């Protein structure tokens, strides 16, 4: 094992430097956008002022060459102001924005004592202040960290992750996130996320409008597309000749005109592309380094390797992820069928290479352990949609039959068909089918629940201590073995049920 320390000061300095460069690069990328917006703003202002000035007789002052210079100067000043405002907001609210985009809910020590203890101990080992802990109520297994520096950082895990990983694997993942916080990787990542989200906005708005129109009727969508697009295409040769003429007349005007013509393309396509490229170039290396740091911090690389193996086969389906924040997660959260545009720039190194790198640390990891972890993850993945449909059909069929048996034994037979045992370390029970609400309580591993009905992402259940509530459909659970007694006359519709009280099994 290398003798590197957990907090490598030169890497932190490099990250701080990269953050500063990144902000500058973003400012450069953003400047044309701001100028474009400012220009529109100024056109409005100029029109209004022009009308007012004409009314007052000052029309000459706002036209002509001097007017143009004044216009350009004010445009420049306004765009710088816009930029500063955006930069300030970006810094101030970056963390909050990312957390909101992910749907993260802060948790107290009382709600998640194990998570708190793990984070606390690892922070002691790393010499970091404790970050705020959040949970995303989703069945998918993933985690990320956000924040501009260790004192203001937040660490987020999903409910699914808490259910999937055991203590030492969770330590590995939390250590990975803490390493990224400590190396200021999260600072970089958070600023990037907000910057990228911002730059995607124009294109996103336009795409959303078109998607809406296409949904109304395909003719409407195509109609608008052609109406807007064809003239643009048609003006290209005209524009080229115009630019040629302008260059012949006055170079500066020609340059400005070309700039103005190309600006929309830049705003909608060029800026987001440069943002993505910036992100990719910088972030890939950090993942490997964070893995190494995590292994060093926990002194147990096997934990992180197993966690990565489990998470890779468990997948992140059902996780609400904003593509701009995808690079912050431990494991790539974008589904395999996401837009190529989004996936290419997600900046995660391939998982098997990461696992191999971690597995090579320390004394090596037996491949059997990794294989077991992968299988566990695959089981978790398939358990995300438990076969509730089959048992749900049975009660319905049973209601259809005339059933002379009393309600209580019927309930018992039902329970045998639709009972599940929770296998997660702690599963929240909600009062309403809403993951953002505070849970009624936590069900321990091994508790048996009876599924009454499905309701979207939730299952309405009855717990063994007679509480009604909702449980996430993706919570890890296994079907309870149906006792032989359920395979009785009660379940067979063909058999005529003639029941004497003494003949009841188990009676």
């Amino acid at each position, binding site marked *: 094992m290398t*003798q590197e*320390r*957990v907090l490598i000061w030169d890497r932190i300095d490099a990250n701080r430097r990269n953050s500063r460069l990144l902000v500058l690069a973003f400012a450069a990328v953003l400047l044309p956008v701001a100028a474009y917006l400012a220009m529109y703003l100024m056109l409005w202002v100029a029109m209004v002022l022009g009308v007012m000035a004409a009314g007052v007789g000052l029309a000459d002052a706002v036209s002509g060459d001097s007017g143009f210079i004044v216009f350009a100067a004010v445009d420049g000043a306004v765009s710088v102001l816009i930029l500063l405002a955006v930069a300030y907001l970006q810094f101030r609210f970056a963390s909050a924005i990312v957390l909101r985009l992910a749907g993260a809910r802060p948790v107290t020590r009382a709600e998640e004592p194990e998570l708190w*203890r793990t984070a*606390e*101990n*690892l922070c*002691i*080992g*790393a*010499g970091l202040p404790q970050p705020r802990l959040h949970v995303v109520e989703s069945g998918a297994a993933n985690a990320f960290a956000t924040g501009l520096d260790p004192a203001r950082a937040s660490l987020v895990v999903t409910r699914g992750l808490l259910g999937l990983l055991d203590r030492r694997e969770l330590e590995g993942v939390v250590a990975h996130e803490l390493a990224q916080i400590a190396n200021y990787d999260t600072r970089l990542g958070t600023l990037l996320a907000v910057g990228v989200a911002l730059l995607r906005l124009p294109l996103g708005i336009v795409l959303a409008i078109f998607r809406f129109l296409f949904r109304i009727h395909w003719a409407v969508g195509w109609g608008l597309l052609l109406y807007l697009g064809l003239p643009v295409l048609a003006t290209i040769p005209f524009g080229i000749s115009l630019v040629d003429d302008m260059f012949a007349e006055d170079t500066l005007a020609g340059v400005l005109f070309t700039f103005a013509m190309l600006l929309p393309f830049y705003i909608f396509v060029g800026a987001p592309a440069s943002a993505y490229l910036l992100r990719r170039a910088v972030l890939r290396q950090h993942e490997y380094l964070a893995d190494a740091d995590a292994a060093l911090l926990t*002194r147990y690389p096997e934990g992180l390797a197993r966690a990565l193996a489990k998470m890779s086969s468990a997948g992140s389906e059902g996780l609400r992820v904003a593509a701009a924040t995808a690079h912050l997660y431990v494991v790539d959260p974008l589904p395999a069928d996401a837009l190529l545009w989004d996936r290419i720039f997600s900046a995660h190194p391939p998982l098997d290479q990461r696992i191999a790198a971690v597995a090579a640390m320390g004394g090596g990891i037996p491949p059997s352990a990794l294989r077991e972890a992968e299988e566990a993850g695959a089981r978790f993945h398939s358990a995300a949609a438990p076969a509730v449909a089959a048992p749900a059909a049975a009660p319905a069929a049973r209601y259809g039959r005339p059933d002379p048996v009393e309600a209580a034994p019927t309930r018992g037979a039902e329970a045998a068909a639709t009972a599940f045992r929770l296998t997660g370390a702690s599963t929240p029970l909600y009062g309403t089918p809403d993951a953002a609400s505070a849970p009624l309580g936590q069900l321990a591993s091994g508790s048996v629940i009876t599924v009454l009905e499905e309701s979207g992402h939730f299952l309405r259940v009855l717990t063994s201590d007679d509480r009604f509530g909702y449980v996430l459909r993706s919570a890890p659970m296994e079907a309870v073995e149906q006792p032989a007694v359920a395979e009785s006359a009660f379940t067979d519709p063909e058999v005529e049920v003639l029941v004497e009280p003494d003949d009841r099994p188990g009676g």
Partner: protein
Amino acid sequence: MGPAIIIGVVIGVIVLIAFVMVGMYNGLVRSRNRVGEAWSGIDVQLRRRASLIPNLVETVKGYAEHERETFEEVTRARSMVEQAGGAGEAAGANNMLTQALRHLFAVAENYPELKASTNFMELQKELSDIEEKIAFSRQFYNQNVLDYNNRIQTFPNAVIARNFGFKEAEFFEADEAGREEVKVEFGSQD
């Protein structure tokens, strides 16, 4: 070249060296302070454990009065940790206390009523949590000590260190036996 330029260059070089030396000195001071801060992290955990021990001893005494030797071992080790000066002594005393506590818990295995009492179980849980925290803070402390010792021993920082009285820091060693995973014995279960 005139003599003025030569003098200027010499002065420039001297000023540069002075700046570099100041930088090195400050770096050593910062490193030493980090070691001190890391030590206080361990100290906090040791004190927390020390404050729990009287409660633990009383609880066990309530059920197992006759295990006098074990109690005394624990109490003695605890006072040794409190009186220890410096990291090396504290490390040795800490290892003895860990061993003594392990004896105590092993003895408690023979008293099922004691094991079932909530007070005992909570104390046990808290103590095991503190042991883990001590392990992590020891890890952090030793890393900082390594960094600091490396600095004061390598050239060119060594020159400054020796002249300004920077001394090596001690590691907080763990017991060799303490580092082994506890082996589960199946032979002696009731």
